[in-house]
């Protein structure tokens, strides 16, 4: 009996913990959104931090990221094309390529890329600031950390993921054309037809929203995880670990929901 009670209690504690974390994130998001709507937020200083964030998240890694997207796209396109030829389904190859790469795989990989590179950095930085009482100090000096530290990171993350995923998608479209039709313009009409068939308004809007959610997940979750850190230095790695796990689950959840909405 005692054992049962203990396990139920621990389960309850976990559920309460998840709700607390979820609520914390939601409250933070609402706070950030409300702040975004205030005209006073849009000053030069905030804008500078956004630019900096975009630079570190997207521009600095652009060449590496595009090279990586190129290799992945080329591989996947080759596999799909040869499989489609083997099964005599070449007519569906271009559509399949675009759907798999541009709509699903590349945004997902972009989110993972940004999460590993910038998300973990943000988490550590916020956790250290929290441990070292820097956030309180900033607030004390009339520099609200939400406006100058967190919100620019969220905006920068969203902008970065949407842009990187878009660029990778365009690259994959180009690669797909080259792989299917080669270096000539003969396939332009049918390829355009395929693209027109796939990218209707709903799909494009869904893609942009999905990328924006990915961007939000890879910045919002690390920030809230960092803010949760108890004021002890040795808790910083634990905070990063928790934050990154949550980011991973959030990315997978967004992908699954988007797939379900699209195909079910």
């Amino acid at each position, binding site marked *: 009996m005692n054992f049962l009670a203990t396990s139920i209690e621990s389960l309850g504690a976990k559920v309460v913990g998840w709700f607390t974390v979820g609520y914390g994130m939601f409250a933070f998001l609402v706070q950030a959104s409300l702040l975004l709507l205030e005209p006073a937020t849009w000053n030069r200083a905030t804008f500078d931090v956004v630019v900096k964030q975009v630079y570190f998240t*997207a*521009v600095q890694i652009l060449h590496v990221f595009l090279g990586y997207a190129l290799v992945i796209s080329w591989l996947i396109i080759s596999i799909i094309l040869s499989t489609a030829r083997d099964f005599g389904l070449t007519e569906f190859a271009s559509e399949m390529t675009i759907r798999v790469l541009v709509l699903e795989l590349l945004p997902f990989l972009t989110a993972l890329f940004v999460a590993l590179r910038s998300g973990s950095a943000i988490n550590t930085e916020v956790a250290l600031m929290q441990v070292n009482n820097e956030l309180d100090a900033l607030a004390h000096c009339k520099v609200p950390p939400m406006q100058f530290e967190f919100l620019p990171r969220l905006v920068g993350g969203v902008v970065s993921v949407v*842009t990187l995923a*878009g660029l990778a998608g365009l690259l994959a479209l180009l690669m797909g054309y080259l792989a299917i039709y080669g270096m000539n313009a003969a396939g332009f009409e049918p390829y*355009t037809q395929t693209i*027109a068939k796939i*990218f*209707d308004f709903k799909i*494009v809007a869904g893609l942009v929203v999905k990328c924006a959610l990915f961007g939000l997940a890879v910045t919002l979750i690390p920030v809230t995880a960092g803010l949760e850190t108890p004021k002890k230095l040795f808790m910083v790695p634990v905070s990063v670990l928790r934050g990154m796990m949550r980011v991973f689950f959030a990315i997978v959840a967004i992908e699954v929901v988007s797939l379900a909405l699209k195909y079910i």
Partner: protein
Amino acid sequence: MNKLHFKVGLFAVASLLLAGIFTVYLLHARGFFEKTFHLQLAAASADGVAPGVPVVFSGIEIGRVTTLGLNENGGIIIRTEFLGRNAKWLKENSTFTLDKPIVGGAKIRVDSPDLAAPALPDNATMLLLTSDVSKEIPALVERVKAILANVEHLTRKDGDLNTTLANVKTVTGRMTGEYGMLESILGSPEKARAVTESLEKTRALITKLDGLAAKADQWLFAEKGVAEQTRESLAQVRLILNDAQSSLKKADAMMANAVEISANVNEGTQDLAQLRAEIDDAVHKANDLVNEINKKWPFARNPEVKLP
């Protein structure tokens, strides 16, 4: 100049430019800048047709079905939409066929045999033909069923085929026995053994006969054999007979003289006539004997003994 800001600016401009170009391209691809061309297809049945079904020309999609509806007479009206640039493939003599392959979705196929023919006007109504593979399947299935029933009848548990196979199995089982094929034909190893035994006896007998025949051959037909001896003795018999014939001829001649000499002697004549009759009789007997022998041993052609 702030290098960081420049780079981000460049990134932003390039991204926005690409996004803009892609948007324009997408709008162009989706026919935003073009007039759409409408066509209505009249069909007997809308089976398999739904909004979104592609209209293909030479395997390339040129339009789509937008809506389905019924007209006043209960016929099906399928409304399709084409981009302005694709309308040139639709001619007045084009045929529209609903293709429903077994694998893959339905599509409406456009065939335009003469591309020089006048183009279809907007909102024209054409007839939709149906080529449906799946409708032929039930008939096919019926025939296959009949064939399968026959096969089943043939292969049923007490069926001819099964009995035959069982027999074949018994026969081949016997074939693998000691007496092989013979056993399979006769039915049991005992009978087969009897046959082989009698065959063996026959073989021994034939060997013996062979030896016997060789001996007989030697005895009968070899040099100095029985046959040779018989022939020789017969030749001697003939010589003897020939001698007898010649002596008889002499006796005959002598007799004739005697008849002439004693012509006058009447009494004696009667006795002589009797003698003559007796000799004639003897000659006849000898002749018969010669004929008899000649019949059996054909060595001479004219064996007759003639009396004058």
